[in-house]
């Protein structure tokens, strides 16, 4: 789709978002999109011990960094549109934390685009998770995982 600008929407917000509405918005009124892949990241509770996750973020840089990652994905995979939304603040188990939607004329590009954005967002977007426990115990900061660095680095070897 050279010559037609891809649509890019990035938001960093405390409010819950409407996954469904965001997905339909990205492809609404267009006939040139063949594939839409969405990723929803939810607050997961391991065995009922988590009261909530608290997400701290770096205002300004969080949005700027996600925007840089998405723009790179659009260029690299020739995407037709991307929406990325990341929440901050207290998030209860089962609630959504992040949404990435990638649209393309072809399915592999849409899968790769969404996966690329998530891998770089995990390791590069300035957010930090702290656990609040049901038993009122002092919250721990979630540790970064080596597996997340590895997931990001596989894109550099391609």
């Amino acid at each position, binding site marked *: 789709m050279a010559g037609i600008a891809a649509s890019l929407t990035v938001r960093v917000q405390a409010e819950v978002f409407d996954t469904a509405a965001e997905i339909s918005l990205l492809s609404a009124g267009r006939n040139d999109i063949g594939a839409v892949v969405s990723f929803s*990241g939810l607050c997961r509770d391991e065995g009922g011990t988590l009261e909530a996750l608290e*997400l*701290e*973020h*770096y205002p*300004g*840089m*969080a949005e*700027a*960094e996600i925007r840089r990652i998405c723009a790179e994905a659009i260029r690299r995979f020739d995407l037709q549109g991307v929406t990325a939304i*990341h929440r901050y603040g207290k998030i209860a188990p089962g609630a959504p*934390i*992040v949404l990435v939607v990638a649209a393309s004329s072809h399915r592999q590009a849409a899968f790769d685009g969404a996966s690329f954005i*998530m891998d770089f*967002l*995990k*390791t*590069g*977007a*300035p*957010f*930090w*998770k*702290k656990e609040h426990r049901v038993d009122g115990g002092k919250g721990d*900061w*979630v*540790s*970064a995982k080596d597996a997340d660095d590895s997931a990001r680095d596989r894109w550099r070897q391609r």
Partner: protein
Amino acid sequence: MRTVDLVYFSWVRERIGRGEDRIELPETVKTAGDLIRHLKGLGDDYASALEHENVIRVAFDQEHVDHDEPIGGAREIALFPPMTGG
């Protein structure tokens, strides 16, 4: 000497005890790594927060940089642990 704004996040912020500082930058502090070592000499809170230098991430004016990046004209410098969003 010139003035820069420092901002901290997550457990770096908690250990230093506040979210931001404004400091005078000595001429000898040329890079992100120099700044981290300089701060560690300013007190126990900084020393504790920045103990393991290699895990500390740095951003100049809201862009990630390596520790050997020259500070140049950066006005806002952020120090934080590895990110855990998504």
